């Protein structure tokens, strides 16, 4: 082969060879199941009765549109999303800014703050189940001692979802804080120095410089957390089991119940597909916001 062709060969083929194992693996593990899932969603299949799948066209999707429990689960997910995300963003940013200050013991504080997000979610679920326990739990004890009314954290329809929210905030605020911290640490110093010279107050430099510069980070954090909250499963499984009744079922949990408790795999597949589409729409909106900034 003459020289230019060899370079061409090397430049094109070599990176592909590096990438290929990864890509093939991902395709096998994700694209293929998705295609099969799509196939399943057009069938009814009750696992375990020995019956094979029956083609039903888009009946599953039609059923999903009229499914009140599915709609409820979406509302629950939205509820958790809005509250958890809101609190986590505020607290996370506050903690990140706090950790930017210099003080003795800063490293240790930072280390300790990162702990919750690394723990086994099931373990965290049980931890909080202990804390929330009516009568024998410390939270209840503290509330009563302060003269506040007892709260049935895990067994009342109204409050159960708040327990999920609290646990999610406890576990994932550190994650948000760390991402914000990384963002804050990578901000250029010059604008801030210029602002101080011009006599800007701390609040002014925060709102005029920090916030706008952090917008990309903010969007990334939001998109990651939104997907994570849609995925929430472990804590719900342990804390409330989706209950009482179905009061804390999120969409993922509902899909699990349909697929693995009632074993209607066809319908479950269609639900998960609808959720997938929803997430893709959400992500596309967020990404377009992100690229608009650039």
């Amino acid at each position, binding site marked *: 082969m003459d020289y230019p062709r060899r370079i061409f060969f090397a430049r094109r083929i070599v990176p592909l060879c590096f990438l290929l194992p990864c890509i093939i693996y991902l395709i096998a593990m994700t694209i293929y199941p998705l295609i099969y899932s799509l196939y399943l969603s057009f069938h009814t299949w009750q696992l375990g009765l020995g019956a094979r799948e029956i083609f039903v066209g888009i009946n599953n999707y039609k059923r999903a549109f009229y499914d009140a429990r599915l709609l409820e689960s979406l509302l629950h997910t939205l509820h958790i999303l809005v509250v958890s995300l809101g609190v986590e963003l505020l607290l996370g940013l506050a903690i990140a800014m706090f950790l930017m200050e210099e003080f003795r013991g800063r490293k240790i504080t930072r280390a300790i703050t990162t702990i919750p997000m690394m723990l*086994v979610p099931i373990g965290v679920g049980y931890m909080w189940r202990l804390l929330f326990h009516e009568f024998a739990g410390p939270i209840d004890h503290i509330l009563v001692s302060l003269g506040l009314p007892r709260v049935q954290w895990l067994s009342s329809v109204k409050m159960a979802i708040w327990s999920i929210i609290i646990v999610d905030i406890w576990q994932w605020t550190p994650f948000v804080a760390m991402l914000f911290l990384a963002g804050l640490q990578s901000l250029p110093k010059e604008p801030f120095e210029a602002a101080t010279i011009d006599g800007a107050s701390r609040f002014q430099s925060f709102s005029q410089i920090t916030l706008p510069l952090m917008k990309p980070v903010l969007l990334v954090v939001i998109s990651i957390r939104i997907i994570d909250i849609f995925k929430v499963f472990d804590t719900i499984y342990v804390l409330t089991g989706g209950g009482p009744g179905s009061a804390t079922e999120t969409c993922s949990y509902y899909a699990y119940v349909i697929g693995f408790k009632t074993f209607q795999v066809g319908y479950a597949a269609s639900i998960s597909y609808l959720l997938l589409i929803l997430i893709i729409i959400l992500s596309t909106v967020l990404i377009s916001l992100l690229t608009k900034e650039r």
Partner: protein
Amino acid sequence: MAKKNVGIVRKVVLYFIVIVLIIWVTFPLYWITLTSFKSEAEWKKVPPVYITTHPNLKSYEIVYRNYLFPAFYNGIIVAVGSTIISIVLGSLAAYALARYDFKGKDNVAFWILSTRMLLPVAVIIPFFMFMRQLRLIDNLLSLVLIHAAFNLPFSVWILRGYFLEIPKEMEESAMVDGCSGVGVLARILMPICAPGVLVTAIFCFIFSWNEFLFALILTQRAAITMPVQLSKLHQTRGPLWGQIGALGVLAIVPALILTLLIQRYLVRGLSFGALKE
């Protein structure tokens, strides 16, 4: 004088916040550890006991004899296996993304990242059916494979971030000396980026160790992992909190230790995963 007062006020406020943060993080951990040491009579008490007077290891004994194995070993095997796969495949892919320019590179990168958007629920049903046909239910291999798949995008992204930071000169001189592409990767980049590789590996390990949904569906008895074992403890016997506490503590400790080990690199590693898009 006024300046000194402000300094003291600032310090008090700072340390107050530190204390609040520490209590916020450690109190739940303290509580579960406490419960694991309580006797059965103690954790039933109302109002709750905050400091146990007779710490006993009975719960740990029961857990050790009945529930800890094979869950603990399984967890380690799955975590190590999936971490190895995702680091090997991920470093190869990250190298290609970091060092070569080719048409469609951004698309590939974006596609790899987009797999993170995948809801596990969407994948799990077909995966379960597929594994059922292969008779791989309750087999560690199925878990290793799916965990690696979910860890891959993450590995690629973070490793790429680390690779991008290393100047090309070192590799170029090695290539002139006759080193091949893979050789460069293995002998130069990886050792230099060892902290980054370590962070990625530990993140993958922790993710796999903590994973619940797939482990729940794909394992039964032989391949059970720690989180699943924890959940089963609750169902079969009703809430025996002492034992749940003990097993919970044992499940949490490995991740805790690993986290404290990589503290230095944590923030930086996360930033590669999220910010350098």
